[in-house]
């Protein structure tokens, strides 16, 4: 053997070759994730069977669905003629026929653009509050949005809404002036008192006067014409937006050292939370009438919004209280030692952190609230579920159930899922920021 021919190091590289089939790509993934053990393999097979069972039953129903028909019986005829006798087949023609009613209830059909525009404006208006990348000055637009939406939805003279909105401006300045002069409690009390006095005595005449000078208005729509998803969204969104600040105040109240504030907040939370929402809704629809002076016409929808708000505020309060309790005592002490007063330390130090912790719980409560708006069917409001009864009451669609519920379920899912995604986005973003 001569040294010259033998090298200890390979002079030519081997060509690259793939790992064996069992160690790469799909096969590897399936082996590791679905069939790693006997138990895992059995579970995988059972799951596959279950999925197949459900899908194989539902697919024909969807695939054979009929989208154009005048009535349920016509749906059946079309199916028998084109697909086959008695084959499972959905009759989505009911959606094509009645979708407007499911979305808008009994809103005048020449005015459908208004709820649609309101929804668009709402989404645009709330963006600056949801995404901090948008310059803060747009928040002024967010503050104006509720009044624009109110006017769009109910209509009437623009001056009535403007005069009502002015009450908030008056309240705000009264609060600022009084708080500077006489402290917070006088400030809040005075501002609330002055605003209500204005709304009771001055807002109406002022609106009428302005309207007689310069009449601008759109068709007035009564609350009882609201229905379908318009109703659900109006109640749900109002409840969500109003219950957050109220819930935060209740949580702070429950943690407060002031005896009266503490006991009132605790009592309120426990009473509201301890009774089913449906009872509160009946209270809103029936019992409130006994307490109000006879002849006052206190809008039912407004009453429902108030009840839903109070109900969800009680839950929010508990969620936020959990967030407050999770903060280390040192944060409160550091804020105090820098000379920040109570409201400043809450606003700048404590709440931003406590709310961050509470995001999942808060969004969970909101999703619950939004779905609970379907309970208003029991006090005679026509939410989407209520409308299914109304639709079935017509001879054309007597006996149709699933197609309507699938549609309604899907609509609710879209709303609730978006809320869930937003909460995830927010959590991730705050996580990144604060580490």
């Amino acid at each position, binding site marked *: 053997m001569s040294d010259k021919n033998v090298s200890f190091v390979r002079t030519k590289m081997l060509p690259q070759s793939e790992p064996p089939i069992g160690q790469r790509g799909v096969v590897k993934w399936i082996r590791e994730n679905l069939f790693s053990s006997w138990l895992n393999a059995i579970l995988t097979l059972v799951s596959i069977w279950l999925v197949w069972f459900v899908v194989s039953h539902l697919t024909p129903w969807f695939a054979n669905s009929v989208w154009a028909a005048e009535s349920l019986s016509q749906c059946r005829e079309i199916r028998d003629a084109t697909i086959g006798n008695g084959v499972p087949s959905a009759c989505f023609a009911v959606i094509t026929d009645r979708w407007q009613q499911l979305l808008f209830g009994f809103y005048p059909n020449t005015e459908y653009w208004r709820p649609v525009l309101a929804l668009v404006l709402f989404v645009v208006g709330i963006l600056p509050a949801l995404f901090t990348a948008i310059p803060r000055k747009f928040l002024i637009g967010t503050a104006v949005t509720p009044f624009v939406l109110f006017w769009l939805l109910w209509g009437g003279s623009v001056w009535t809404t403007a005069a009502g909105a002015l009450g908030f401006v008056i309240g705000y300045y009264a609060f600022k002036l009084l708080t500077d002069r006489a402290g917070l409690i006088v400030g809040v009390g005075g501002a609330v008192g002055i605003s209500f006095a204005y709304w009771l005595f001055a807002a109406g005449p002022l609106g009428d006067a302005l309207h007689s000078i310069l009449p601008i208005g759109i068709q007035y729509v009564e609350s009882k014409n609201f229905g379908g998803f318009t109703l659900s969204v109006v109640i749900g969104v109002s409840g969500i937006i109003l219950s957050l600040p109220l819930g935060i105040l209740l949580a702070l109240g429950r943690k407060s050292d002031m005896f009266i504030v503490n006991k009132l907040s605790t009592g309120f939370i426990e009473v509201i939370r301890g009774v089913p929402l449906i009872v509160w809704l009946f209270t809103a629809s029936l019992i409130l009438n006994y307490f109000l002076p006879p002849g006052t016409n206190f809008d039912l929808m407004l009453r429902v919004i108030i009840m839903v708000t109070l109900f969800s505020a009680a839950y929010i309060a508990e969620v936020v209280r959990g967030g407050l309790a999770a903060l280390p005592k040192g944060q409160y002490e550091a804020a105090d030692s820098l000379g920040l007063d109570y409201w400043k330390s809450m606003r*700048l130090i404590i709440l931003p952190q406590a709310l961050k912790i509470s995001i999942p719980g808060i969004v969970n409560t909101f999703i619950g609230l939004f779905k609970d708006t379907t309970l208003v069917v029991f006090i005679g409001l026509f939410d989407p579920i209520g409308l299914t009864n109304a639709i079935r009451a017509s001879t054309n669609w007597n006996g149709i159930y699933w197609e309507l519920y699938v549609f309604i379920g899907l609509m609710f899912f879209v709303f609730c899922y978006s809320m869930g995604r937003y909460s995830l986005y927010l959590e991730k973003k705050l996580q990144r920021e604060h580490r």
Partner: protein
Amino acid sequence: MSELAIEREIDRSQMKVSDEVAIQITKMNKWYGAFHVLRDIDLTVNRGERIVICGPSGSGKSTLIRCINRLEEHQAGSILVDGTELSSDLKNIDKIRSEVGMCFQHFNLFPHLTILENCTLAPIWVRKTPKKEAEEIAMHYLEKVKIPDQALKYPGQLSGGQQQRVAIARSLCMKPRIMLFDEPTSALDPEMIKEVLDTMIELAEEGMTMICVTHEMGFARQVANRVIFMDQGQIVEQNEPEAFFKTPKSDRTKLFLSQILGH
């Protein structure tokens, strides 16, 4: 506990104790429920004094200095800070708190704000300093504690020593006349202890009135003008550092010193 050596020469030219009284505590008592934590505390601190408080765990050191800015409430006796009496009057409390800076054992920075925002928050919202000016002040003090390059980070991204220096800078941004320290180094590793002590020494060199609860006896020896020993809620002994360490009078002080200095 071993003593951390302070290597550099301390510049005493600005360290002057004036006759002006900064804090006057008379016959102060405090209870937690039935537990008598502070008993008949009498203490006068003049402007420019650097006082170190030491004593065994649970002797009430933290409680005492927390009473000075009303993080704890006292039940009897009086505390005057810069001539203002601490009572339940919220106006006085807020005034005193904005004059008295405090650093905690666990820093207590605000984790949702950047270092710069931590420092500018109180000047902007309490002193109503314009934002730009507040940021300049903040950068000035961050430079002083030698971390201006971290200004845009969040507290969670800094080491313990850096965080404590930010906490000191945050207090200084309020331009306090008195600084309180509650065991500022006891949650830190030795290396970081040094950087925090250096910052505190610089502060002392500029004539700041300081009260420090600490077990850093090297710091006490070289920087303090008075060392106070507390036990069971009482001030047992106080003296100049030289005399305090060389010739302690009470037996409790002797015992404590022998334990803490490790011989």
